[in-house]
């Protein structure tokens, strides 16, 4: 209902007015138990009750064929054990996206951390009397470690690191590509605590001639053994320096892992996309030959081109050489204001967000309120190391009413700057185009 408050009743003859229940100033005073005239009420307004004009609107069930215009994906909000309400992509296996408002801080709460499983038989119960992490394969001394062993027999280490799904922001792709239609919320930053992977490998004694280390998890699919649909397996080259930085984490943000995020232990590969961060680990297997299972040889590969970019025509022509996906390109996000409300002109606001890179610490975040035509530096928040979210903020006093196209871009310590060009590859990976947010400013006088 809409009416001018200086009038004591809605516009005459309107449908709304006919259905409204007006309480006069006098009757309101009676309801309050106060005699009329006791207190001068001046321009007291009529209280009103009315009936709905329309159903509450909601996002469409899916977006497309244009790019998803929303920050998050468009699925319903759902409830899961150990989780606050998150955005649903799929229910079996479970894929849940973190809503935008949880990215105002450097660390993402465990109960809001996004979830991505590949196979439908995922753990809901683990017996720690029976669970063991095996260090096996091409090693001198195979190990079988309980969680207690991990907690007490090795030196613990902690590391802040961003975990981001390879397909984060896939719903931005044009033309659209198959796969989980993530918005921007398939990412999170946590303080991971666990045992260094290199300490475990050293304890087991890697034999000469070993080339890779493979990670095995507790989840299973209904496909036959040896098929991708049966088991999710990922591997890293033993010569990769990231091995020295990786953790077998049994805690995130100072607590045990939520079941949906890989209880009792998961791999942490700082700077790398989350496909390598195998959840609910059951074995670490040293290989004498390169891993050629589906999840390495076929899936999670990007074009061997700058930014992993290619074209549908080049793919069709068979001209695209691919390599396993690896480090995360630099990204930044504007989190607030999120565009759900209008800002009065001349009101000071603080525009806030986060930035990160898989190549090292964030050294600069720039913002623009004129659609990336001019830029100014944002103030960076506390630095938690090279692989963490870095918060940023920029004070802003919009002088005039209008529609402002905000943009944000980050630069990492290796000099990588976010580009303003889209990426396209057939699997929908490594998106890092400059993000934009329209902020509407209204008249305030």
């Amino acid at each position: 209902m809409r009416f001018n408050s200086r009038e004591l009743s809605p516009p005459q003859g309107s449908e709304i007015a006919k259905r409204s229940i007006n309480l006069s100033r006098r009757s309101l005073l009676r309801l309050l138990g106060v005699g009329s005239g006791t207190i001068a009420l001046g321009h007291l307004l009529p209280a009103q009750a009315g009936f709905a004009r329309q159903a509450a609107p909601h996002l469409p069930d899916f977006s497309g064929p244009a790019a998803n215009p929303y920050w998050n994906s468009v699925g319903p909000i759902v409830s899961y054990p150990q989780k606050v309400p998150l955005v649903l992509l799929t229910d079996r296996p479970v894929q849940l996206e973190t809503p935008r408002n949880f990215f105002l801080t450097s660390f993402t709460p465990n109960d809001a951390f996004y979830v991505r499983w590949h196979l439908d038989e995922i753990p809901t119960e683990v017996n720690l009397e029976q669970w063991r992490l095996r260090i096996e394969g091409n090693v001198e001394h195979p190990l079988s470690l309980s969680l207690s062993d991990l907690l007490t027999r090795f030196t613990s280490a902690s590391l802040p690191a961003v975990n981001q799904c390879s397909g984060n922001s896939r719903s931005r792709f044009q033309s659209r590509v198959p796969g989980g239609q993530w918005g921007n919320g398939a990412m999170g930053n946590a303080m991971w605590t666990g045992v260094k992977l290199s300490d475990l490998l050293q304890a087991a004694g890697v034999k000469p001639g070993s080339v890779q280390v493979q990670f095995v998890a507790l989840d299973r699919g209904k496909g036959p053994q040896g098929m991708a649909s049966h088991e999710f397996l990922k591997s890293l080259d033993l010569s990769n320096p990231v091995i020295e930085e990786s953790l077998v984490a049994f805690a995130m943000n100072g607590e045990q892992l939520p079941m949906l995020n890989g209880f009792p232990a998961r791999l942490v590969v700082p700077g790398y996309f989350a496909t390598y961060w195998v959840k609910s680990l059951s074995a670490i297997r040293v290989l004498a030959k390169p891993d050629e299972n589906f999840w390495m040889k076929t899936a999670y590969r990007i074009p061997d081109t700058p930014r992993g970019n290619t074209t549908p025509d080049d793919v069709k022509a068979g001209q695209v050489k691919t390599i396993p996906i690896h480090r995360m390109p630099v990204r930044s996000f504007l989190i607030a204001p999120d565009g759900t409300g209008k800002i009065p002109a001349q009101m000071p606001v603080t525009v806030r967000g986060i930035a990160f890179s898989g190549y090292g610490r964030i050294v600069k975040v720039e913002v623009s309120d004129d659609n990336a035509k001019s830029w100014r530096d944002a103030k960076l928040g506390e630095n938690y190391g090279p692989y963490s979210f870095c918060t940023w903020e920029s004070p802003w006093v919009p002088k005039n009413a209008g529609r402002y196209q905000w943009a944000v871009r980050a630069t990492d310590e290796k000099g990588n700057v976010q580009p303003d060009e889209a990426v396209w590859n057939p699997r929908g990976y490594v998106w890092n185009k400059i993000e934009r947010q329209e902020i509407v400013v209204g008249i305030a006088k």
Partner: protein
Amino acid sequence: MWASQNESHGTQRKLLDELPGRISWPLAGVAPLCLAATTLRGDLQRSDYSQSNLGNLKQPTPGNLQAGAIYSVTAYPLYPPQLEPGQGRELVEAYCNTCHGVRYITMQPPFRPPPGMPKSKK
């Protein structure tokens, strides 16, 4: 000219402090409302409730935790979508529901498979 926010609050507090001496206590409860009401101006829209809603969620229970070696959560809920009625819907629901839920279908936007992508054999 308005005073600063704090000064404005201070003025209201001063008025409230003086109220007991001026009016009886039962009236003091409605006084803030009345004071607020006297300052209301503007083109408003109110009482816009809808008979429909955006849905609601039931909270998960924490489960029955015992001090043993078993660590568990309650079963993961399913949120199956309704597929459009049409020829072959039962086949789709049967075959495409084996390895994963059919939300994989409804999640996808309209798109043409990019060149080089294997076509689904499901």
